């Protein structure tokens, strides 16, 4: 799985960080998403998929191999 984020459209809700803190973080100053791991290990795939599903700005994109 390859993860990418469109930080320009991020609304800083932080839902992804709650679900997958190993993969996502937020910038301290404005809460915009920071991608920590572009190719997360398999045990993280479910929470990452969940993050993409609930992201209120739909800015998390997944390429599943």
């Amino acid at each position, binding site marked *: 799985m390859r993860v990418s984020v469109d930080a320009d459209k991020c609304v*800083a809700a*932080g839902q992804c960080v709650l679900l997958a803190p190993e993969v996502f973080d937020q910038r301290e100053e404005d809460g915009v998403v920071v991608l920590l791991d572009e190719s997360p290990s398999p045990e993280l795939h479910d929470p990452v998929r969940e993050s993409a*599903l609930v*992201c209120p700005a739909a800015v998390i994109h997944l390429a599943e191999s």
Partner: protein
Amino acid sequence: MKRVVVVGASTGGLATAEALRRAGHEGPITLVGAEPAMPYDRPPLSKQVLTGQRGPNELALRSSAEIDALDLDLRLGVPAAGLDIGRREVLLEDGIRLDYDELVVATGVRARRLPGTGGIAGVHTLRTVSDALALKERLRPGRRLVVVGAGFVGAEVAAAANGLGVHVTLLESAPVPLAAAVGDATGRFLAAMHRDHGVGIRADVRVTEIVQDGGQVSGVRLEDGSVLPADDVLVAIGSVANTEWLADSGLAVQEGLVCDEYSAAGPGVYGVGDVARWHNPLFDVTMRIEHRTNAAEQGLAVARNLLCPETRRPFAPVPYFWSDQYDVKVQAYGYLRDHDEALVLDNTTSASGRLLVIYRKADRLVGVLAVGASPKVLRAWRALIAGSTAWTAVLNRTIAA
């Protein structure tokens, strides 16, 4: 294989369909939407769409390739007209009947209107992309916009219009704008912010009439008889759940579709998103939440409960919302409505651009609202809310800090 029908093709309905496929459901999914547009995102309608930062073609919740991959029987532009839960059949307005094994009700809400204002040009409500584009067309420098109702939609539109050079007046029937939802202190903070930007705020006023001149709105008459002149009026006085099609179904409808803690409304029927009034066991409150993030989370939860009823789980989220006004982002976790106390922990002058308020209901912490707080601080508060932390423990901790 279960045949699933999802009625409502916005955030909640689409999230349910997507979650069903992600969980491995291979049976047929029909997604019914009243609006003709492909599923789109609504929060930008009161913000970036009005300012022109986002075009109407930049609102899709998913790309058409992503929608295609879900292999849906997509029926857009057709509202549902009725439901027979005994025969497990949804009736659409075009006469089509859809059989289902499991039904998801995600029909959302519509904007509440002022009675008798239907045919008057220049009177707007804001819920759909066409509403937003019609309003955007009218927001020109020097024009006068009166916003009736200083809730979050009204406040966001006021901020966007103000930035476009429109003269904006925000009317609120309560003594403090937004107080019912977020408390007096937050309401005063936000009202001051609007005033600092030049928006006129009139609180504790009631509108008695939309004044028109030849079918075009010309002003708003207030209870004291005075008339505020207006080129356009936005009516932002809350919403009405779209449940009329359920009226004869036998399901319980009470300002929304009544659901239990699993989001189930009846045999083979679930509610998702703005339309669902479900019991949230975390707060022990039956709530209906009109927030973007809740619709997606509830869709995910319902997809799981629907596919695996033997391992179903209560839907017990900490609700989250945000609001963008001017250069400020308001963020809140929890259930703030009906709070007993709102305690200000950080200063409330709008000039500082910072605000931190926590909310108590009975003896526990139920919410936090912040402007300008760091994500880590907010997440720490969220964790305390999720843990049903006692108010006394919160106070001790705050004092210790």
